[in-house]
């Protein structure tokens, strides 16, 4: 037995609002977290994948016989063999468009053509070289807008089947096109809104594909039990969703599929919904042995990406800065398979008008199949792309009208009671406070520091809002053990965000016990109750509430049991400090464990279910998009090197609304992590393709930020509800969406140049500066460009 020293204070009764260390901090630092990546099963096979070298091709012939003969190879899966197995062949969380291995066609460079299960990785790798494939190359399309044009190469000749997985997802598709989903939002009459405007602004903004780069890659182990049950260990953010999809594919009752998830080594959205579980389970079925499938770093880049976007945004405004209308077209490249694009393009779509009172709004958001790696959830979920467009344009509008950019926003920002783009009435929104505070933190309205020679200093702000998936459901169970310690059963996935600690803290508070008296069980669909997903910054709120309900249920049961022992009515019994006592007599009660022992119950099981309601009209996008809105403001001060285009962030401050911070220390870490991720995507992260072939699919050629890249000053503050009893918001994503626009606006402030394409590389900045110098004499930072010059 290893005894370890924990942080002091964790054995004292904890409360919500207390700054606690991560529940698994010691394990993380000592490398003792049992990641799925480290799991081995007796007799397991290892898998390697043959991938398409072509962006779009028909498979004329595939011959695996050479691979079959390689000693140590247990099974080789190809399209024709898949068709003979008598299981479902295609999967997808919303649209069943992805074959377990390619059947007739490949749709991107990296599409899985065949899989080898062998005694070790080297053998599997060697066998790949003995699979003969004949391709007939087809024309390919890599841009979402081009893919929507008539005559574009079609990824799917007929529409793949679709099912209603989640209540909020509405799918509009059209046969004979590459449209994956079209989200429509219609509020008021934009023609009228533009007629009422004094000025119109029309711009196009774009963002590139980016990669999540979780430290731990996608990993799945699959094993079939002798009784026909399927057991899957998967590094997934969505064990229950994976279970449902596996049950459907393998025609099993859900109760006969077990999905287990350990702590993930990072995810950022990359591990949401079904990925490689069907392939691992199919190989295990065919080979009759357990298998382990781990993606290499290069393969991670091909599995899932951030949606490249192009957003056309037209805004009408009165001379006093009142916004009258916004009309927006968003094109999202979904890549070769839908994954969660049908939802993401909706959420990005309704976020795109921004957090403003605008009477007339029209949004058309198109998710489009292209011959690129699939795109899916990525921290921020469409909001970063949407606000990059909207928040840069708002800044330009302010400058054109001669109004301070903060002031223009303050005049239009949503307040409690205002109608959002979806017409839902906003409640508990705090944009004005967040923006004012963020701006003040970078010295807005005060003189700027003198730049060094050849440099220019500027400041920028941005605001953003992001929904949380609605409706949604979380179920939790809380067990009070015989000694009074607490077991929380939850399918929320710990992926570095600290969810386990948050849930432990919420449960511990109810019983008045220490953090170290609570265990939170890892998701196991045989044991832990249903949860929709660990996505959308929903766990603290949704699962946190379910855990709170379950703990209250358990406490009520304890009160009933103790009533007889203490000769009091259950309503008069309190639970605190791990003890049960009659109100007013804390010294005369019993420890929780004694109640369970003396009533011979041994254990109490509390149950909690939390369901939220909402939904949008399929034709107008009007309704309730979110049970509550994550919202943030970001502010940056930058120094631009006018000779190199290099931008240094002198200060960055983020303000987020949290309602109530369960663990302020964790909250701060989430905010800082969000900003750092946002800075990488702002300045340099970009997956680059050459005819559909990824050219920088490794961590030497694709950079992510390091601690050396942090701004001179990086600060964050969260705002809590003044009542002290606000709804606890998740913070996984809130601070991400404003980052790029706040930086872009600061560069605009410093130099007068507006860059509309991410990332903001030094070269891109220098090209814009040179274009500006060529066009006219150097502009002062306070110039106001008239629309005609834009």
């Amino acid at each position: 037995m290893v005894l370890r020293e924990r942080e002091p204070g964790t054995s004292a009764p904890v409360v919500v609002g207390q700054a606690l260390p991560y529940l698994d901090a010691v394990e993380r630092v000592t490398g003792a977290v049992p990641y799925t990546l480290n799991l081995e099963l007796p007799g397991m096979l290892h898998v390697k994948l043959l991938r398409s070298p072509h962006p779009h091709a028909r498979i004329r012939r595939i011959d695996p016989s050479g691979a079959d003969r390689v000693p140590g190879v247990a099974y080789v899966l190809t399209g024709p063999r898949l068709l003979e197995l008598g299981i479902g062949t295609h999967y997808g969380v919303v649209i069943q468009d992805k074959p377990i291995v390619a059947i007739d066609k490949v749709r991107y460079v990296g599409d899985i053509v065949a899989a080898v299960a062998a005694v070790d990785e080297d053998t599997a790798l060697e066998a790949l070289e003995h699979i003969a494939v004949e391709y007939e190359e087809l024309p390919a399309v890599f841009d979402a807008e081009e893919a929507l044009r008539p005559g574009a190469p079609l990824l799917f000749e007929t529409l793949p089947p679709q099912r209603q997985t989640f209540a909020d997802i509405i799918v509009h598709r059209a046969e004979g096109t590459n449209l994956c989903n079209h989200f429509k939002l219609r509020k008021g009459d934009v023609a009228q809104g533009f007629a009422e405007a004094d000025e119109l602004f029309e711009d196009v903004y774009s963002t590139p594909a980016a990669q999540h780069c979780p430290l731990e890659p996608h990993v799945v182990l699959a094993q079939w039990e002798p009784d026909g049950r399927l057991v899957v260990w998967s590094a997934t953010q969505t064990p229950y969703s994976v279970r449902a999809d596996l049950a459907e594919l393998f025609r099993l009752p859900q109760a006969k599929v077990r999905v287990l998830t350990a702590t993930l080594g990072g995810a950022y959205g990359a591990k949401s919904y079904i990925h490689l579980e069907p392939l691992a389970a199919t190989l295990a079925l065919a080979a009759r042995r357990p298998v382990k499938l781990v993606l290499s770093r290069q393969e991670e880049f091909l599995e899932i990406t951030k949606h490249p976007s192009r957003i056309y945004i037209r805004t009408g405004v009165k001379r006093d800065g009142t916004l009258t209308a916004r009309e927006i077209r968003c094109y999202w490249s979904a890549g070769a398979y839908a994954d969660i694009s049908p939802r993401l393009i909706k959420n990005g779509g309704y976020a795109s008008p921004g957090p403003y009172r605008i009477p007339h709004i029209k949004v058309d958001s198109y998710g489009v199949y292209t011959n690129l790696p699939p795109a899916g959830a990525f921290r921020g979920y469409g909001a970063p792309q949407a606000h990059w467009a909207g928040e840069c344009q708002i800044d330009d509008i302010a400058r054109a009208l001669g109004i301070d950019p903060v002031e223009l926003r303050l005049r239009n920002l949503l307040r409690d009671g205002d109608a959002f783009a979806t017409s839902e009435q906003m409640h508990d929104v705090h944009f004005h406070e967040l923006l004012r505070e963020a701006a003040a933190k970078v010295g807005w309205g005060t003189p700027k520091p003198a730049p060094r020679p050849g440099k220019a200093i500027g400041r920028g702000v941005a605001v953003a809002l992001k929904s949380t998936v609605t409706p949604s459901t979380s179920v939790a169970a809380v067990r009070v053990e015989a000694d009074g310690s607490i077991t929380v059963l939850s399918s929320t996935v710990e992926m570095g965000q600290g969810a386990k600690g948050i849930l432990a803290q919420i449960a511990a508070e109810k019983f008045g016990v220490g953090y170290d008296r609570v265990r939170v069980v890892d998701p196991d669909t045989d044991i832990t109750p249903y949860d929709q997903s660990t996505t959308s910054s929903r766990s603290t709120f949704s699962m946190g509430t379910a855990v709170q309900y379950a703990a209250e249920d358990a406490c009520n049961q304890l009160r009933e049991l103790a009533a007889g022992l203490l000769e009091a009515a259950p309503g008069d019994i309190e639970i605190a400090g791990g003890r049960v006592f009659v109100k007013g007599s804390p010294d005369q009660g019993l420890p929780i464990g004694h109640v369970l022992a003396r009533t011979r119950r041994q254990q109490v099981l509390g149950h909690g279910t939390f369901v939220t309601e909402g939904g949008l009209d399929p034709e107008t996008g009007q309704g309730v998009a979110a049970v509550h809105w994550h919202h943030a403001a970001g502010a940056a001060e930058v120094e631009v090197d006018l000779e190199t285009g290099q931008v240094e962030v002198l200060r960055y401050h983020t303000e987020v609304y949290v309602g109530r911070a369960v663990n302020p220390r964790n909250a701060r870490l989430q905010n800082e992590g969000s900003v750092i991720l946002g800075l990488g995507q702002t300045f340099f992260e970009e997956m680059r393709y050459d005819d559909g072939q990824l050219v920088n699919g490794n961590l030497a050629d694709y950079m992510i930020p390091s601690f050396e890249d942090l701004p001179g000053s990086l600060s964050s503050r969260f705002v809590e509800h003044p009542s002290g009893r606000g709804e606890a918001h998740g913070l996984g994503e809130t601070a991400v969406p404003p980052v790029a626009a706040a930086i872009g606006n600061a560069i605009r402030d410093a130099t007068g140049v507006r860059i509309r394409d991410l990332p903001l590389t030094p070269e891109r900045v220098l090209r814009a500066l040179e274009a500006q110098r060529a066009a006219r004499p150097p502009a002062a930072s306070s110039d106001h460009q008239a629309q005609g010059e834009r």
Partner: protein
Amino acid sequence: MDLEILTPSSVAEAAALRAEHGDEAKVIAGGTALVLMLRNRLIAPRYLISLNTVADPLREIHYQPGRGLRMGALVPIARAERHPAIRERYPALADTYHQVANIRVRWAATVGGNCTEADYASDPPALLIALGARVRVQGPTAAREIPLEAFFQDFYETALGPDEVLTEVLVPEPPPDLRAHYLKFVTRSSEDRPCVGVAVAARRDAAGRFTDLRVVVGAVAGTPQRVPEAEALARGERPSPPLFQAIGDAYARAIDPIDDIRGSAWYRQRMIRVLVPRALAAVTDATSEQRGV
């Protein structure tokens, strides 16, 4: 893919193994570059000749006043950057090593491997050339020294013979009036390889006039670039912004830069024009005057 690790017990034996296996063998030291190439399947050697079993003293750093610095090929970059004699006598070299990648890479990567890899986008080679460094290489029977400037021949190509192993990096004793500086310019993360790197080594007389100037621009072509005609512009001149700009312009005109993921040729050309004068300003800046090399 069967990869056999060969474990020679001496440098001569390692050289003989190179001669024996030719292109089928690669020498591995720290492995930070080689393992990436293996993983990305850019190379597929049958043998890896490990230098880690070699008994010869390849991990030592020797500095002798008047005779200069000798760094064994297997010295980790992080150790060179910390070595008291290097920090004292060659501070620009210590700074340059400090700017390579990140601390984890620097403890694995070696000063010798850094040279033999001959990656065009690397920091130390430009400064080592500016300091007049040589490498010592050993074949099965004989050893020789090669100036680094001649050692680098093209992208990932060196003058190392097919039966030779690099054993030492040699940096001459810096003259008392030598000042050196390396300016690393990255366009992405600070851990990135350079988009452009400018190394400068300058000597000036008591009146402040340049008596010797070397400017080496790295990461812009297959090998670090020197433009002697441009260096010559400084001879007998005092530092001045117009002089530095003239040298920068001459470098930008003379070099035909590459395009890669860190910057286009268009951009690199402009950056040479901007960064050469900046590096010259840094090396002649009064505040860096006390810093020595």
